[in-house]
């Protein structure tokens, strides 16, 4: 568990002008933990672009807010719950969902979509496979339990397996909500004399010091920290949602914030700090479900499903009436003061007295040394390789853990509740309509630690490009982003260097694609017994498009022209080392991630958006991990395949499986119209084939059918793709 350093303790003494008592030390420890204060990353996070025409609220609030037109807005954010999910997968993941949902509705928005980025150790790992399967099953059922009961659709996400997550799985949860501009609420304790009201679940001892646990490495003792993990109650959260939104409509609420990490401490001092006010509370008034709790226990408890709000003086009863209707506790526990202090009383006696601003915003900032090369172990040089059977390679890729269908996972999520999900799990980007408008929101989550471990900067740029391409592939214009930075111990310069390089890469790409980052989360110390995870930045990017039936991945009709918008791309052996082919078939990695031309990528995206919105694409799918052959196979799984011929400029392994970006597969009955749009954007758009029934064939121009590199039926490809995850999870159980 992280503690205040000697230097930090000195700073506390100088702020207070005296020795802190035990409760105050606890309060500073959580507020100045890495998790709450971003003390190692903050100076670098300032490099990220955060402004844009559509940004209504940027970083610093509970979630970012974007204007979507017509007086409507969306709030969205991503957060990690990595450490708790390792210690107790079901509750850790469930409360991860609960926490991010509260961040959304505390701002006044109704949550309408959730997505998850998950990372686990390999399910067939000889040593850790059993545990990895148990963690995956626990995490998935935890997410399902919370999201399904709460009534928010889980519309997509990603799930990747690498040995570096054996001792450190990642659970990053993204949530998005919708509301009108005039329904936005802030976490500000304004109005001296206004009552401070506690609503929701009672406070217990659960989760004490969760935030500081999440700011330390895992050691052998971590398992004893199970009591630090909170327990979630999605039914309570659903009531809290409805009650909060209804109470907000009374007009009697002036500020509201959820009690997440660091619970009462964080909500009181942050609300006071943002408003420049003081907050005084009496802990004896806090609803409690255990007896004998100390001030320290109550201030640091992370009991779930609680909110703190400030109401207009004299209108408390309007607020209480709403919470009573929903059967929830709502109690005035204090008031807003003018002296800027967080004053905590317990049975009248002062238990803590700390200036809000210093506590919330003046955490020490560290410019940690990063003057080392980013940590990497892979060689630069490619090993000799040559495929013996390209068909077998493709089948191996289609059934590989990262590329196979994740249906076993997402079928456990209610992805269609609220009847807005136009495109759900398995699509390039999820699409959720906003019923009250003609606008839909597309969203994509993406990360690629394999690329980032080879080059954090280039990997980060590729992730942003991939997310924006996913959105463009369904016709959406990318407008804003949130990020979750999962890294190891920042006190090691070679890890800090990864973080800095990745942030700079994200920053460059987000500026280029005009997707400002409106908020996010940093999760450091993802190490177990000294072994760090690969650098794993995860992006969540949202886009806007007119509401209409979505253009989807599968080929629809025989005899259509297949166009590879953006062209075949190119790749040398060095830049082939981070591919799924290298991982799955060659079982190694080397070199660098695929090369990315940001400017060309942006033009390809503009072209595919125009093609999709013009209604001339019958199907559309971007080329991503696994390369062209895997992408074509994914288009063919429903039964209409394609006969494809490519140039033969690259050796077959590279031509079929390189992961160069800036490519989208389109099937169309109007190839000339697609070509015309491509020309307009200065993008190549070779016709690479035609759709045919039940088969996929890939060869080179002028080659005979029987010399094709790939020749397979849709059914042969479907089998490994559909069933391999399920087999890994179910077969081993007795």
């Amino acid at each position, binding site marked *: 568990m992280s503690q205040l350093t000697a230097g930090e303790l000195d700073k506390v003494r100088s702020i207070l002008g005296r020795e802190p008592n035990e409760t105050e030390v606890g309060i500073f420890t959580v507020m100045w933990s890495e998790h709450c204060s971003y003390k190692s990353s903050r100076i670098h996070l300032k490099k990220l672009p955060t402004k844009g025409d559509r940004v209504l609220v940027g970083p610093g609030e509970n979630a970012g807010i974007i204007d979507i037109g017509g007086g409507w807005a969306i709030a969205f954010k991503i957060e990690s719950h990595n450490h708790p999910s390792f210690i107790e997968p079901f509750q850790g993941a469930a409360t991860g969902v609960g926490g991010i949902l509260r961040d959304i509705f505390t701002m006044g928005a109704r949550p309408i979509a959730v997505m998850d980025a998950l990372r686990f150790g390999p399910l067939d790992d000889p040593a850790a496979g059993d545990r990895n399967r148990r963690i995956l099953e626990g995490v998935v*059922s935890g997410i399902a339990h919370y999201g399904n009961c709460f009534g928010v659709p889980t519309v997509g996400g990603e799930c990747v397996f690498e040995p570096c997550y054996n001792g450190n799985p990642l659970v990053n949860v993204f949530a998005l909500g919708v509301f009108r501009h005039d329904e936005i609420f802030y976490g500000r304790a304004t109005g001296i004399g206004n009552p401070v009201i506690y609503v929701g679940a009672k406070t217990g001892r659960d989760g004490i010091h969760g935030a500081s646990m999440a700011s330390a490495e895992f050691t052998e003792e971590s398992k004893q920290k199970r009591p630090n993990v909170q327990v979630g109650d999605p039914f309570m959260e659903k009531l809290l949602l409805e009650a909060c939104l209804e109470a907000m409509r009374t007009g009697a609420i002036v500020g509201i914030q959820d009690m997440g990490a660091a619970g009462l401490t964080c909500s009181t001092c942050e609300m006071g700090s943002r408003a420049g006010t003081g907050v005084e509370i009496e802990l004896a008034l806090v609803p409690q479900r255990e007896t004998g709790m100390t001030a320290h226990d109550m201030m640091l408890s992370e009991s779930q499903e609680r909110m703190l709000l400030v109401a207009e003086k004299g209108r408390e009863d309007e607020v209480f009436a709403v919470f009573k209707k929903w059967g929830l506790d709502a109690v005035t526990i204090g008031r807003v003061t003018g002296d800027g202090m967080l004053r905590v009383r317990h049975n009248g006696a002062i238990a803590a007295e700390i200036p809000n601003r210093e506590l919330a915003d003046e955490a020490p900032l560290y410019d940690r040394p990063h003057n080392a090369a980013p940590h990497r172990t892979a060689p630069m040089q490619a090993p000799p390789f040559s495929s013996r059977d390209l068909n077998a390679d493709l089948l191996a890729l289609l059934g590989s853990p990262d590329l196979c269908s994740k249906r076993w996972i997402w079928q456990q999520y209610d992805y269609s*509740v609220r*009847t807005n999900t136009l495109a759900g799990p398995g699509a390039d980007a999820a699409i959720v309509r906003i019923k009250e408008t003609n606008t839909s929101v597309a969203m994509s989550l993406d990360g690629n630690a394999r690329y980032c471990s080879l080059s954090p900067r280039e990997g980060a740029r590729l992730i942003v490009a991939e997310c924006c391409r996913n959105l463009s592939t369904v016709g959406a214009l990318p407008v804003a982003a949130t990020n979750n930075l999962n890294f190891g111990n920042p006190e090691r310069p070679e890890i800090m260097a990864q973080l800095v390089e990745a942030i700079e890469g994200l920053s460059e790409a987000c500026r280029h694609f005009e997707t400002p980052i409106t908020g996010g989360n940093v999760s450091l110390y993802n190490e177990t017994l000294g072994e760090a995870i690969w650098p794993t930045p995860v992006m969540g990017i949202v886009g806007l498009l007119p509401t209409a039936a979505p253009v989807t991945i599968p080929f629809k009709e025989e005899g259509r022209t297949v166009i590879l918008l953006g062209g075949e791309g190119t790749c040398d052996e060095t830049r082939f080392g981070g591919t799924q082919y290298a991982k799955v078939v060659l079982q190694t990695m080397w070199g660098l991630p695929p090369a990315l031309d940001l400017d060309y990528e942006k033009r390809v995206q503009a072209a595919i958006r125009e093609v999709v919105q013009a209604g001339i694409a019958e199907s559309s799918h971007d080329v991503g991990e696994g390369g062209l052959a895997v992408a074509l196979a994914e288009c063919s799984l429903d039964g209409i395949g394609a006969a494809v011929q490519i140039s033969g400029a690259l050796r077959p392994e590279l031509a079929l499986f390189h992961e160069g970006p800036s490519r989208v597969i389109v099937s169309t009955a109007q190839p000339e119209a697609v070509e015309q749009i491509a020309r307009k954007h200065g993008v190549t758009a070779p016709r690479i084939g035609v759709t045919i029934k039940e088969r996929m064939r890939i060869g080179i121009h002028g080659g005979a059918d029987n010399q094709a590199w790939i020749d397979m039926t849709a059914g042969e490809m479907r089998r490994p793709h559909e069933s391999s995850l399920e087999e890994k999870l179910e077969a081993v159980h007795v």
Partner: protein
Amino acid sequence: MRFGVVVFPGSNCDHDAWFAVSQNLGQQAEFIWHDSHSVGHVDAVILPGGFSYGDYLRCGAIAKFSPVMTAVKKFAADGGLVAGFCNGFQILTECGLLPGALLRNRGLKFVCRPVTLRVETINTPFTAAASVGQTLTMPVAHGEGCYFADERTLDMLEAEDRVVVRYVDNPNGALRDIAGICNERRNVLGMMPHPERASDPLMGSTDGRVILESMVRSLVTA
């Protein structure tokens, strides 16, 4: 035509049912709060999906004690149309308006996916606009949807033509592939799949409309 959609604490398909009836079908729809002692002036009642009262203890087990269910029972006894979808079906079995019970899915996991249903009878106000043998595609989304009843009850349901829809591809292990049943008087329907999620062309299927439209038609002709 006026539909009432009951809202329990924890209902989360209430708005979807309201939207399907009012926006997709163009009928009137209103919400009925769980502590109401009357269903008001409505022509039909929908018990929506969700997790009423958190579904603690057992799905639907607490909802049966809510004041509104006394009113719903009286409404049904007076011949009013009552349709329970998903959690609504669970509540109807718990409070005895329909026989049997919904158990944990055979696969022990929540399952959300489109299923294919076969209409078994059109001799109900909920399927009057369909045809026997017609197949319907609509989503299921539940953890406890495995229909169970003793053999005698199952035989009786079949003998009395009260199995309304069956799964073609059973997602939960329901006995005799039962997806939905009606009561003896044929004015109360319970089914696990979600017709309200298949009533809008943008949602991929409009097969659910035949259930809701049958209700409208039988109310108009009644």
